[in-house]
């Protein structure tokens, strides 16, 4: 990565005298490296370059788990980048509290972000003590079940319409040599799939009691016990998917080797890139087809406090570009996510995105767990669920007990 930024800097010194007179380089770090993601990022870079500045791409491969430590240590270590992606919410909270991040309140009031950003919880997650510190770029929801139509055809069962039908179809799929549920080995995938099951099986209220109010009695109660039973089913169905990354797991679904995957709507970009069509090649079930609720977590850009006047100006230009309607449309169509403004036209969106937009318009939304829980509790949850999904001898009861302990200790 260092090499790349060095190369970028070198290239810029060569390019400067030739053309763009007042172009400022801004290094932007993010973890969007899968095919669909990279295509989406290119849209952001194009929009930013059009403002006369230069986007220096600092992609860090290996998803957020690998990238965030690098970003944080660069910021705390005194080598900040120009802008960086985080899932907004609590991941950057302490960096903000330590005064390392730039306050965007002026720009936000000037451009009236409070009015244009929908739902309002997105901007609230950027707000710490009344000041706005990040520019949300998209809404990502976790609550999706992606199904391969071809796989179900091969197994000779109809494409399920909800989670229960999917579980019932599992034996037929297995007989046809298809893994019913693809699940990558990275810990966050197991934890995320469980959060999705909570909303789908136990409903929105229970989700909020557990993660927003941190009610340990609910976490230890019968509603969550049902969720753990469903997770037990999911564990059995996911046996045999020996892949690590989420996009490899999505690829199993795309190629029909696996029948389904519980994954956020970022998986859509992969289907799109593979040339598949929603409805005919693959099916998406928001809320696992049970409870059509989506979470409104997402990605946002944070801007470290820089001394360089020019760069600060470029930061502002970038923040403003990110929220422009054109950028929002171009980026989100490629990314498969929903725009953060309610007033843009997504006529070219595919069926799955339209489903998401409808749910969003109805207001069936919850906050993402990244917004509700500290990274510490999230990590403990990841440890628990990656163990649960990999170790068949761990009973749902034991797992629930540990889950309740984590919720009890969460702040």
């Amino acid at each position, binding site marked *: 990565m260092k090499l790349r930024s060095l190369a970028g800097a070198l290239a810029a010194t060569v390019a400067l005298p030739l053309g763009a007179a007042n172009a400022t380089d801004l290094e932007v770090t993010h973890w969007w490296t899968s095919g669909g993601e990279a295509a989406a990022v290119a849209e952001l870079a194009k929009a930013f370059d059009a403002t006369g500045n230069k986007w220096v791409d600092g992609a860090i491969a290996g998803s957020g788990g690998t990238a965030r430590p690098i970003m944080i240590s660069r910021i705390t270590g005194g080598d900040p980048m120009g802008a960086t992606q985080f899932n907004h919410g609590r991941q950057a909270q302490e960096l903000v509290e330590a005064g390392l991040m730039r306050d965007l309140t002026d720009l936000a009031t000037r451009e009236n972000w409070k009015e244009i950003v929908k739902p309002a919880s997105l901007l609230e997650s950027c707000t710490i003590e009344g000041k706005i510190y990040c520019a949300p770029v998209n809404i990502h929801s976790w609550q999706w079940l992606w199904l391969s139509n071809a796989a179900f055809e091969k197994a000779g069962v109809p494409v399920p319409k909800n989670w229960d039908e999917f579980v019932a179809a599992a034996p037929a799929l297995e007989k046809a040599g298809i893994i019913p549920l693809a699940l990558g080995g990275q810990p966050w995938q197991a934890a995320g799939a469980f959060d999705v099951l909570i909303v789908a099986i136990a409903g929105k209220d229970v989700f909020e009691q557990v993660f927003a109010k941190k009610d340990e009695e609910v976490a230890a109660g019968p509603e969550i016990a049902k969720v753990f039973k469903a997770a037990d089913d999911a564990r059995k169905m996911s046996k045999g998917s020996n892949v690590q990354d989420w996009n490899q797991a999505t690829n199993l679904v795309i190629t029909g080797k696996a029948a389904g995957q519980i994954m956020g709507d970022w998986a859509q970009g992969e289907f799109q890139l593979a040339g598949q069509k929603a409805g005919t090649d693959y099916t998406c079930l928001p809320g696992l087809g049970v409870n059509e609720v989506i979470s409104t977590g997402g990605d946002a850009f944070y801007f470290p406090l820089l001394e360089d006047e020019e760069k600060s100006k470029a930061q502002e230009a970038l923040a403003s570009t990110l929220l422009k309607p054109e950028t929002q449309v171009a980026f989100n169509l490629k990314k498969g996510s929903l725009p953060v403004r309610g007033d843009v036209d997504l006529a070219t969106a595919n069926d799955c995105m339209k489903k998401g937009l409808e749910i969003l318009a109805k207001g069936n939304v919850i906050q993402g767990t990244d917004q509700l829980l*500290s990274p510490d509790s999230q990590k403990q949850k990841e440890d628990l669920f*990656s163990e649960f999904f990999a170790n068949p001898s761990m009973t749902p009861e034991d797992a629930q007990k540990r889950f309740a302990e984590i919720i009890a200790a969460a702040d």
Partner: protein
Amino acid sequence: MTGQTRGSVRPNQWLRNLNAKIASIPMILTAVVIFVGGTAWTVVYSFTNSKLLPRLAFVGLDQYERLWAAPRWLISIQNLAVYGFFSLVFSLVIGFVLAALMDQKIRFENTFRTIMLYPFALSFIVTGLVWQWLLNPQYGIQSIVRSLGWTSFAFDPLYNSDIVIYGILIAALWQGTGLVMCLMLAGLRGIDEDIWKAARVDGIPMWKTYMLIIIPMMRGVFITTLVIIASGIVKVYDLVVAQTSGGPGIASEVPAKYVYDYMFLAQNLGQGFAASTMMLVTVAIIIVPWAYLEFGGGRKRG
């Protein structure tokens, strides 16, 4: 080395070997400030509830209580024990046997030595990736053996929670034994030819010569090797990351990875520091008595 010829020049004891002392000041400062200072700082902050950034809000032993209640930490410790024991035993035994075989004045010794040492030139990350592929049931050893006709053959240690740590051990041994072999070979070459001749004249069988004469004479080499292997064991991290990322589930987690994950991923420095302090204590429990015996009371060996 110093201090043995004391008595001759008493007044300027501090000025003896002045050049050497001045030259070693930077190293002494580095050791004191960075190693000792950094260690002390870590230990102090392990008693705080520091999150992303260190802050001095003491919470007593909370971090340690949480650490020892965390299933993932307990699994990490178990894995380290298993990995440590076997990697110590096997790399010493295999390394020594290879060295003894090399020492039989074979042809193409240089070629063999290079081949054996080559894995050591690779980083742990590359080693890990290579073995991840080799042990992958879809592409690696298992699929090759199956394609040769033995279709029920199963060898997928990295995807089996019970034996995953041995899969990692295989890669570690592949990488590390070459170095051990070279160290041992150097030790064997240091043994005087006359000793072998004397043993042969006395009619002592070769294995007995090795066990009773040669190995005891190679004590220094063994200790050096032991220290190198042991420090490699405690810090094992990249191999696990490259091969399994701690999976399946948390079955192949190791302490160093716990420290990293909690410090930077979970943004909980206090917890990470507590874990790293425990690692330090473990090392100290092993190293201190040994170092005391070896260097402290060890004047008698000169």
